[in-house]
């Protein structure tokens, strides 16, 4: 513990990240550039989320870390241990007990409350990047609110596949102004983004932070005749029986047999332990 400054980062770096978080909250959905630091883990392992969490945590916090909904995967465990070691914070796997939740690619099934903070790890923060490689151009497009390219992309999906084929990182419009990448969460999670908790997004390699204050309007892009469909595998969880949770399809043996189980391990376990809907 004594070898590290509280939460690993030096104070000047935390001030810089904190200023970026505040401007992110003041302009919801806009990507604030920040001077991302080298972290003791590779890019792609959540360095953006880790820096945002480090600038947010207090000694009194209880931290939960999930990777694709699971608390017990390598990425989640290593980040949780990182903050146990460097910030000496309490950790939990229970969504309801956590004050700060760092997530890779899922929003917990249990509804988040006021006072909780959800920190997303973001690989590519720019929703227009795969349509327009130039940062100069995409920055102009955001300034001019010129998002026609994205609508064309979704339209082409419909004309080729008959439906919008984007199933994760599904683009959203924030407060009717900024187009935002919700990080690669399944589109099933998009409707949950209008929530009571504070949402912070950190992209370490791409050096961007953005944010959503509670109760911010977040609308998934769609068309009148092709309304947004959150989608869900047509099964119940084979462990807990939930019919309203996001499911992972897992191959269970050499014969290729499959089962569908909740992606949110805490939600599933709470139901199995008889603590009711998400253990609330």
């Amino acid at each position, binding site marked *: 513990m004594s070898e590290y*400054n*509280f*939460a690993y980062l030096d*104070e*000047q770096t*935390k*001030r*810089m990240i*904190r*200023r*970026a*978080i*505040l*401007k*992110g*909250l*003041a*302009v*919801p959905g*806009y990507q*604030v*550039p920040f001077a991302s630091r080298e972290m003791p883990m590779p890019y792609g392992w959540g360095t953006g989320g880790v820096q945002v969490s480090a*600038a*947010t*945590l*207090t*000694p*009194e916090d209880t931290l939960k870390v999930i990777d694709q909904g699971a608390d017990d995967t390598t990425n989640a465990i290593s980040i949780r241990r990182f903050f146990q070691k460097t910030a000496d914070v309490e950790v939990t796997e229970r969504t309801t007990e956590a004050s700060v939740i760092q997530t890779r690619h899922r929003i917990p099934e249990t509804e988040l409350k006021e006072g909780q903070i959800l920190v997303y790890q973001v690989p590519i923060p720019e929703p227009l990047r795969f349509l327009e490689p130039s940062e100069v151009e995409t*920055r*102009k497009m*955001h*300034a*001019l609110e010129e998002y026609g390219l994205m609508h064309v992309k979704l339209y082409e999906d419909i004309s080729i596949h008959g439906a919008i084929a984007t199933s994760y990182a599904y683009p959203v419009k924030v*407060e009717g*102004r*900024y187009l935002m990448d919700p990080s690669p969460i399944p589109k099933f999670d998009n409707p949950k983004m209008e929530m*009571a908790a*504070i949402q912070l997004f950190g992209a370490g390699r791409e050096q961007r932070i953005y*944010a*959503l*204050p*509670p*109760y*911010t*309007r977040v609308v998934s892009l769609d068309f009148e005749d092709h309304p947004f469909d959150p989608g869900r595998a047509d099964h119940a969880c084979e462990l807990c029986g939930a019919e309203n949770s996001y499911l992972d399809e897992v191959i269970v043996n050499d014969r290729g047999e499959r089962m569908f189980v909740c992606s949110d391990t805490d939600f599933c376990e709470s139901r199995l332990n008889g603590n009711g809907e998400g253990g609330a």
Partner: protein
Amino acid sequence: MSELALQGGFNSPPEDAARAFRSIMGAMAHPGRIFGIKGVNPPAPMSVAMGTIALVLCDADTPLALMPSLDTVEVRSWITFQTGAPITAAGRAMFALGQWREMLPLGRFNRGEAEYPDRSATLIAECETLKNSGLALRGPGIRDVARLSLANLPAFQENAAQFPLGVDFLFCSGTQIAGVPRTTRISEV
């Protein structure tokens, strides 16, 4: 430099600044909601809340403007020693500190650029009191409506009309703060 400048900082900067930042973030994320904040004892007439915000957010990278009521030798040397922030004119400042009525007109502060709306000033303004009554606040961070004892409604409306450009506010009184980002729509009722 007087000895006063060396005193009044955080006892334990990493932990105290982290706790204080959570109040500031809460204020910016819940416009109009009043949060407690402490940890720093600045020289008069600066409030505990304002001094604490300054030490959480300001450093050598953040040019800072002092309005006349705070532009004293004591405050200047305290800010300089504690934060290292260069003291500058309103138009070049990332942060401005002063009484709310001294901040007007808002047009002299940096309101950001179309491509970089984050490059706008944050105004840290002292009020006599902060109460959840008076003007009505709506927008991101507010479920229905919030109320805050603010004066000078037209200045807020003009600022909000420039969205996504505009300045953001943190109001201070004693050990209390409340935030009003540029997204907040303010009216009488």
